[in-house]
């Protein structure tokens, strides 16, 4: 009796261990599969960026290895022989200004909706959400006249003015979630300490919503860097283009693609953005949950 009991336990334990090992193997298999699928185009782009022409344009060559020595020639061309640095500068300029406008508009709006308890607050929140769902592809035709009327055509300023219409609704939604998690007592204490309600917002609540602000900054900047439709429709001059539109339209001459330089541009833009996103991913997840669940 005693003996069979222990063997039974032993058998069960062994089965459990086998199941655990199986689960680990399955987990790592899935990890590899997903990483491979996601990263493959970028791996291929990275290899391509350093290839010599004679190596790249030979169908008999194994495309995944360097059949000839790698070269920096095409990265060099991208950085000193094309308008890529101009695109990068424009993208930074647009990004920084869009982030500033987005914060200036959405912080007060989010506070107003989250904290000032107006009877129309809820309806307004939903209205803002619907605005977020009106995409650029629906507006760019009529906006082309608006942009022309404002004399902003062919200028990065058109993008600086238009991108906040995409970022503000999302940011208001996100920041509302953050403001709602700050206990009301903190605000009441601040008013007792002599701050006006607005002073309490500016000096106490905004610093406390810092994680939300970081999420907004990352979101607004990456959106300005990736937006395509407005940039394509409103900016045609090379010196005013951003990366997302300049690279696909200017690094191709007629039918001649500068493949290595193009792929170098893709990787050089993709990796830093992904790094920043990865750093703030947890914040994004919290921001989204709070915005969605408590909004």
């Amino acid at each position: 009796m005693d003996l069979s009991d222990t063997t039974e336990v032993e058998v069960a334990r062994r089965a459990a261990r086998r199941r655990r090992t199986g689960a680990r193997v399955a987990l790592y298999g899935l990890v590899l599969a997903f990483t491979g699928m996601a990263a493959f185009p970028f791996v291929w782009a990275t290899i391509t960026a350093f290839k010599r022409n004679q190596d790249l344009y030979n169908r008999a060559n194994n495309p995944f290895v360097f059949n000839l020595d790698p070269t920096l020639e095409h990265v060099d061309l991208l950085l000193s022989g094309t308008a890529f640095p101009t695109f990068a500068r424009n993208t930074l300029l647009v990004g920084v200004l869009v982030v500033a406008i987005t914060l200036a508009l959405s912080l007060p709006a989010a506070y107003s909706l989250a904290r000032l308890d107006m009877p129309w607050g809820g309806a307004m929140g939903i209205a803002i959400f619907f605005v977020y769902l009106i995409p650029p592809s629906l507006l760019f035709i009529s906006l082309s006249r608006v942009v022309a009327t404002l004399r902003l055509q062919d200028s990065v300023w058109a993008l600086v003015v238009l991108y906040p219409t995409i970022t503000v609704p999302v940011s208001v939604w996100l920041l509302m979630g953050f403001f709602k998690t700050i206990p009301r007592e903190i605000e009441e204490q601040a008013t007792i300490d002599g701050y006006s309600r607005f002073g309490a917002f500016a000096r106490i609540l905004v610093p406390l919503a810092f994680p939300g602000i970081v999420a907004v900054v990352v979101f607004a900047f990456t959106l300005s860097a990736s937006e395509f439709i407005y940039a394509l429709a409103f900016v045609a001059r090379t010196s005013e283009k951003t990366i997302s539109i300049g690279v696909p339209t200017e690094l191709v001459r007629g039918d001649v693609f500068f493949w290595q330089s193009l792929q170098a541009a893709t990787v050089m833009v993709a990796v830093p953005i992904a790094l920043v996103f990865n750093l703030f991913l947890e914040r994004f997840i919290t921001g989204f949950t709070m915005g969605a669940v408590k909004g």
Partner: protein
Amino acid sequence: MSTPPATAAGTAGTAEPGGRYLLDRKGFLARVMLLPAVVYIVALVAVPFFLAIAYSLSDVTVGDPSFDFVGLRNFATVVGDPTFRRALLNTVLITVVAMALVVVLAKVLALVLVQDFRGKWVVRLLVLLPWTTPTSLATIAWVWLLDSLFSPIDWVLRQLGLLEGNLYWLGNEGLAMTSVIAVQTWRIVPLAAVIIMAGLSAIPSDINDAAKVDGAGFWRTLFEITIPMTLPVIAVATLFGAIVVFTDMAVVFVLTRGGPVDATQVLSSWAFFRGIQGGDLAQGAAIALFLFPVLLVFAVLILRSAKRMEVM
């Protein structure tokens, strides 16, 4: 205002001079703080939106911006055009197929990413790349991956003896559509997975623990707890992804320019070619407006799912 002014208890607020008093009034402050954002949005979203509707009922072109009302003529012309019908069909087809794939893949990816494993930081970075990279640049990597002569996929197939010559991914109607769907799925899966992860992390861990104590295995926990509890968030993730894919034009524009011969045209790209490149703003606006009813349905569904998450 750098140091809070000392006020005697009990007199604070009411006894202050006018400006200070205004900054304390909730109703005034609520309106003033919301106003800039609302004015901005009304000017650059609401006005263009109604302008788009007006354009679609007019004969406005880039060359002749004078406004003449023509009723529903543009819609009749647009709908009678086989390229438009193809674009509408393609838009729906790409969205539906890509989202069906995204639901399954994103759910699995989210389950994987909440586990503990070695090198998680790097894995997360690589898995996020398709979504965080500007769409037009990520698509450029794909254009090269699917190159008519030098596609490495063709090379592998040739090495395996499965292929002679090349597949011409982007030159063949069916393969070009497959490619567009693949790129859309590829870039939306990380976004949907991140949203689902947010939902997974919101499941109280004591429910999972209780299930474990009651002897529920992995699959039972998955199908009887995790999936039902995350269903609303999966719906939200899918609908968000659907909106992104449904309205996107970067992928099609960079990958195929709508080709071969308009076989992969979608509503946004067709509106662009007609309205901006062709200069017929009225028809372009009419084409783009076909996006609207579907978006409205998506929005209502998202709000309903979000409400269900709240109830949970």
